[in-house]
């Protein structure tokens, strides 16, 4: 059953380099539920025999253009159809790298703007806090790369046959919503910020769950429920961290105590 994907790849690897085709560790993903014969992918497999440590091996994960990336970002915010269909069976790594990077810098910049506006309104001196950039870097990159890898490992252990690239793409593109949420959170109303965070967490959470459900449901009922709850919980924790660390509402007038 696990060989049904390998049937489409070519047969004999060369001895010198790690061929893409037959060695399981050379290909970072299983074939997931791509039961249909994907001619594009098999042609790629047969002609591309690059070693795993070369840049050309990873170039096939970056085979997207601007229109495709924009389309995928829009599809993650406005869930009209199944995201895996939007990706057309060829998930990329361009989005899952650059969107979290953008989110990190946007979070830092907007939270610094928020705090400087706050300081200006209350006439206190202000310098930016670079530790927020460090914190954003750690949080967002672990959420975008470590968590999908962990979920992939867990689902693979329980026999769900997940695709690592799809997991990374889901989590990566799912972070897109936080960019408009960050920008809009500059407006200084706590209720608005809470509403924006709730909307952001809701939209990306629904996006994640809807697209991961087919993979998760292949495990037993109890296990898939547990993993689902884990995914939701991690997502909720991310939303709360973002709210309290970056979109915190503080009023630093001399008389008022700060309110989160």
């Amino acid at each position, binding site marked *: 059953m696990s060989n049904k994907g390998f049937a489409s790849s070519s047969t004999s690897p060369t001895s010198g380099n790690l061929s893409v085709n037959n060695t399981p560790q050379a290909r970072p993903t299983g074939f997931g539920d791509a039961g249909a014969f994907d001619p594009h992918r098999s042609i790629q497999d047969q002609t591309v025999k690059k070693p795993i440590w070369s*840049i050309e091996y990873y*170039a096939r994960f*970056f085979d997207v253009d601007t229109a495709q990336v924009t389309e995928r970002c829009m599809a993650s915010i406005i869930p009209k159809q199944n995201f895996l269909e939007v990706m057309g069976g060829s998930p990329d790594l*361009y989005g899952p790298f650059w969107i979290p990077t953008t989110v990190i810098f946007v979070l830092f910049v907007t939270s610094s703007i928020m705090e400087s506006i706050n300081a200006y309104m209350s006439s206190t001196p202000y*310098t*930016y*806090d*670079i530790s927020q*950039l460090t914190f954003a870097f750690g949080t967002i990159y672990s959420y975008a790369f470590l968590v999908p890898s962990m979920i992939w490992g867990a689902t693979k252990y329980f026999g769900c046959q997940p695709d690592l690239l799809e997991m990374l793409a889901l989590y990566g593109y799912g972070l897109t919503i936080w960019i408009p949420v960050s920008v809009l959170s500059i407006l200084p109303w706590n209720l608005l910020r809470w509403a924006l965070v709730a909307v952001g967490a809701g939209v990306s959470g629904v996006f994640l769950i809807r697209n991961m459900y087919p993979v998760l449901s292949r495990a037993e009922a109890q296990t898939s429920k547990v993993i689902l709850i884990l995914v939701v919980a991690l997502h909720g924790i991310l939303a709360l961290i973002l709210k309290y660390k970056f979109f915190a509402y503080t009023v630093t007038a001399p008389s008022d105590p700060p309110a989160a």
Partner: protein
Amino acid sequence: MSNSHNNLIEPDDFLSPAAPSYVEATYSDTYDNPFETSIPQRINSPSIEPDDVPLPGQKPSSPVKTPLPKVSGTIGSSSQSSNTGGNIGSSGIGLGVGQAMMGGGIDTLDEPVSETLLRDLRNVGAKLQQVLYPKGRKDILKDWDLWGPLLMCLTLSIVLSARAQADQKITVFTWIFIIVWMGSAVVTVNAKLLGGRV
């Protein structure tokens, strides 16, 4: 020494074939010091070349006996008209990939250090001028060097670090460095992965 000849290994048993001329020149029944050759034979040896023989691919330089100020003056003036003579081996730094290596490298060895440094600084300044106000030759940026980016990065890091909060100065400096250099690396890898020729 001749009566100890039989106890010693023949000279050409352990001498490398790279220096056969020593052996050939001094071979005799007695054991002689193989390094006690006269100078003309050393020149005939194929393994050591005199200093003024040009390296393969270079034109032979103008007569070696030229007094030094004249030669360095020639190189200095030619560096403004063409960008090949500029940074030859002067301090070993600032060598651009696009510059040709000429055989006159040793001529910049005796110039004052200020001249060496100023030549590199003028190059950096010229490229900076091209970046900030793009008139003039555009391909001046093709013979790249990394001193300019390092200077800019250091200046930016130091200025921003001086203005940061007291307990964060080190972090700010680190972040600027990381963003500039790792950022360049990441963007280059990204361009290569997307199929660009970098």
